[in-house]
Each structure stands twice: as C-alpha cells, then as structure tokens.
C-alpha cells in the first residue's frame, strides 16, 4: 500500500528525512510512527499525505506518487497536527465544506457526513460551533473530516496531544474499530505508552532516519546486543539454584520473592524453563520479561545509534 524508495525530504538546508526505504503491506491494521521531537515524523507524514514532494527518491501510495495527485489523495484521509479550527463555525457546516472539497455533493455528501459523524459518535453534537466544543470533541470532528470520503489509508499526526485520559481512550477504541473494518491507519506520537496501548507494529524514526520497523517483539529479538531481562517470581533460592545451571545466564539479581536473570538467547532458555515449571521442578509462579516493551526497545535503539 505504501512504499518508499530512498525518499528524502529537505526544507532548504534543513533535514527533514534522510533517504528512507520501507514498505507497508495492504490490509487493515494500525502502525505507530514513533520518534523523539525532530526525528522526522511530520516530514514522513507530509510526504505520505502528498503535501510535499520528496527531495529525492520515490514515494508511492497505491502504486502512485501522492504529491498533487487527486487519484491518490481521494483514497487517503489526513488528520493533521494541532487544534486550529475556525472557532465561530458550526462543525457540520465545516464538514460539509470539507466534503465538497473532497468531491462529494448532494445526497452523497449528506449521507457521508451523517455516516462519519455516526462513526465518531458526534451525530447529536455536530450543530455546535468549534468554540463550544472540548478538545476531545474537536478531535473527533477532525477525524470525521478525514473519514468522510471513505479512505483506505488514514494518517493521523499526534492525534492524542492535549486530550484528557478518557478522550484518549475513546479515540483509541475508535481507531481500533476502524482498523478492524479494514482501514490502514498510521498514527504518529512521541508518547510511547499511547502507541503501545494501540498497536504492536511500529516505525521508529530517529534523527531523520528509519531505525526499525516491525512488531515490538520482533524488534526486541533483533537487538541481541542487549540480553533479555526476565523476572521469575517464586521461591527465590530455588529459582536461583536452577538459573545458575543454565549456560545462557549472563547475570542474576536476587529480589524479594523473585529473581531477575539476564539471558542472551531467550529462545534457548525459555523452553527449558517452561518444561521445568510444567513438571513442577521449579516453583515458578510468574514470568515477566522486563524489557520486552516499547520503552525498553526505544531506549536501546536510540542509545545504540546515539
């Protein structure tokens, strides 16, 4: 669906995105676009949504270059960053205008507006002006705008910024629903927890470069420079006695009622651990991989490349 071939973006002398190559396959699903401030997230989204042409290389969406290409743009929806809307305008009128810009008219426009408002749960409140809406409500209207023409690809730039926790959770649920119905969604955020809650598939950008792409578990397993930390809960002495016998053990730390082991190759040790626990050989009550999360993966990746 999306493919970049050494696509780069520069704003005059300023680097937005270094030459980047990757592909996202067809089909629904959510991909999180992660990176520190200034990593190139917005640059990548600007390329993908056809707002800017690449300075070099190629960007293809649905097999075509998106820049100034209505055929592509009609099939993607964009929710840009920020919360700037004409305050005095009624939301439904703004949506009608945006729908007309997308080429809808008449009955089709009315139906699309109603459908989009229904999807974001704002059907009964669309007659309010933007000034009278909360940030969460405005964010929903902005999402409705991107959904009106039934896009196959939905791009959201920092959609959770400034939302309170409940509005955040609602928006996440909404995005999950859309993805379940077959829309491919690309969400950028600099808050790892949000992405971790939303999806497992990430694109990680750092200093204008693509650092990693894939699921958190896959990426973590590729990072074999860093031993995996596992917390084994149970009777600590007995667990430690078992652990020191294992050839993969790199480090061992005792804690209250648990031990933390660092192992180089979890694929070798985990089956043996499971077997021992299944046979009742060790008193294992819980198994917790401490650094198999987005935070740890992000930190390892950015530290390795710093």
């Amino acid at each position, binding site marked *: 669906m999306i493919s970049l071939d050494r696509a780069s973006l520069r704003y005059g002398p300023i680097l937005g995105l270094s030459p980047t190559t990757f592909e996202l396959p067809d089909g629904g699903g959510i991909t999180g676009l*992660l*990176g*520190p*401030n200034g*990593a190139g997230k917005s640059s990548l989204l600007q390329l993908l949504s056809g707002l800017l042409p690449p300075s070099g290389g190629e960007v293809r969406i649905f097999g075509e270059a998106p820049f100034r290409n209505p055929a592509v743009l009609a099939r993607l929806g964009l929710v840009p960053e920020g919360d700037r809307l004409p305050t005095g305008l009624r939301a439904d009128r703004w949506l009608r205008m945006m729908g007309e810009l997308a080429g809808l008219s008449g009955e089709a426009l009315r139906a699309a507006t109603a459908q989009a408002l229904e999807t974001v749960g704002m059907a009964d409140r669309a007659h309010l002006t933007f000034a009278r809406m*909360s*940030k969460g409500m405005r964010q929903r209207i902005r999402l409705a705008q991107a959904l009106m023409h039934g896009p196959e690809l939905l791009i959201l730039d920092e959609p959770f910024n*400034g*939302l*309170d*926790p*409940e*509005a*955040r*959770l609602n928006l996440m649920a909404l995005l999950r629903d859309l993805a379940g119905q077959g829309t491919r969604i690309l969400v950028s955020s*600099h*808050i*790892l*927890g*949000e992405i*971790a*809650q939303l*999806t*497992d598939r990430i694109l990680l950008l750092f200093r204008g470069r693509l650092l990693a792409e894939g*699921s*958190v*578990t896959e990426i973590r397993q590729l990072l074999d420079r860093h031993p995996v930390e596992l917390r084994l809960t149970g009777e600590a002495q007995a667990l430690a006695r078992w652990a020191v016998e294992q050839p993969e053990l790199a480090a061992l730390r005792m804690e209250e009622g648990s031990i933390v082991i660092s192992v180089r190759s*979890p*694929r070798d040790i*985990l*089956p043996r651990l*499971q*077997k021992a*626990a*299944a046979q*009742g050989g060790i008193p*294992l*009550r*819980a*198994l*917790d*991989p401490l650094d*198999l999360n987005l*935070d740890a993966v*992000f*930190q390892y990746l*950015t530290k390795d490349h710093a």
Partner: protein
Amino acid sequence: MPLIAFENLEVRYPATPVPALKGLSLRLERGIVGLLGPNGSGKSTLLKALLGLLTPSRGSGTVLGVPLGGAEAARLRARIGYMPEYDALIEDASAYEQVAFWGELSGLAPEAARDRAHEVLYFVGLDEARYRPVSGYSTGMRQRVKLAQALVHSPELIFLDEPTNGLDPDGRRRMLDLVLRVHAELGTGVILASHLLGDVERVADQLVILDQGQIKAAGSMAGLRKALARRVELRFLDPLDAAQEAALAELGAVLEARNGLYDLELTEADPTATFRWAEAQGLTLIQLTPRHDRLDEVLLRALHPQPAGA
C-alpha cells in the same frame, strides 16, 4: 501530619451559583499523588484553594497543617511550589536570573536566592545553559527551569501540572526520574496532575480522580489497582494461529487479546497447569503475570460507575 486533609470542602467562585468543588473529603499522606481528571474537572480550582487564592465557602481543610481560609493561608504559598502547565518563563532573562527571582519572591534573601538558584539548577541538570536567556531553550530545558523555579525555596509540597508536556520519550523519562528524586531525596510532597496515565502509573503512590468538582476515587495506588483473582496475562514467543487461539480458551475464558498479549481468566489458580498446557501445545510462554487493574480501568470505573449487579 498529612499533606492535605479536607473535610466536606466546598469552594465557589464569586457570583456563580454552582460551587466548583462540591464537598471534598480527602486525606493525602506525604508522597507522590497523581491527580487525574478531565479538563474542567476542578483541578485548577483545587490548586487555587491550596494556594489560598480562593477561600472555602463551606467545610474545612488543612494543607501542611495550615487551615485554609485562615489568617495564615497566604503564608502557605511560600511553602508550596508550583510548576504551571504552560510556559510561564521570563523569556528575556536567563534561567539563573529568573530562578533566583522566584526564590526572592518566596521570601529568600537576595544572596541566599542566588546560591540556591545555582543549586537547584544543578539538581535539575541544567549546567552551562543557565546563563543564556531561556528563549533559546529546548522544551526539555524549559520544563527543567519550570521545575527548578518550583523547588528553589525548598517547599514542602510541589504541584506539578503536566510536567512532561511536549517532551519526547527520553525527556519524559528524565523528567519523571527527577520527580521521583524530588520526593526521595528532598522529602517534598508532590501532587502531579497529568493527562498521561503512564506518567502517573510510573511515579505516583497515591491517586485522586476528580470529576465535575467531586472526588470519584482516592487512595493509595496499590489499594486502587487491586490484583484480579485468577486473571493472568500471557504472551508467547511466537504469534499464535487461529487454532492455537481457540485452544487457549480451554484454559479459561480469554477476555481480551491485544498486540500479542492475552488477558485470561484461568479455571484454577496454580500457574503450573498453564505451563503444562503450553508445553502440550508446543508453544513457549515468555510472559505469565498476575493481572492487576490497569490505571485506565480504574479511571473509567471511577468516572462511569456501573450500577451494582450490572
């Protein structure tokens, strides 16, 4: 002495019929308190009441042992530090100058304020940049200046409003580490208002959920995030196929599967059976942890209480 103790505290703005805080009863111990609530839930009213800018219209409250609305309430402000959500920085002054200035406004002598400004700027990790005007600072540095400003007079309680706003993952981690250090090393009580549940989960030991001027839930984090009996979260080394997912239901009810993590209600409490099942299926478990309430569940439950039995 509790950090905060309210007894049926009601606060209203002049000339408004509905009170902004409707009878809060609350007792918080010295620690790190996470304050959650939608926009307009009464967080800033609570802060203004704590600072003695609004007097309670009914009920009573003490902050750091000082009664609100009394003669001493204005002096309370010298004992509280406040880090606002927005950039309240004097752009044309250096970090050092303005931190010293805020210290003096809290009652430090000029010389003491300057020494103290240097000390807190080292504490928050701002080195040579402190002599440059803050207008050239990055977001992370600006947040540090705001934190230094709140700490300069060594308050007994600091109120942090969205301290990680606009920070990237690294900056966020460092800011939260600082918050933990403020409490651990300086013994300062912390109230942390944040929209990010992850922040609160990471640092807070107590939690208050505020909505529409009322307390929806309050207490220690451990007490609110109860362990759920016979509920575990499972993750496997390799993704499951449909048949294996179906087989998982034999173990108990699969309540939720997300991003390769399965939330499971087991039929028996002993996890040995689960390991045995995985062994039989030819799967390798990489995670098997007892399931606790997640903070988002606590929050949603507090904001939308289900009627009993539903």
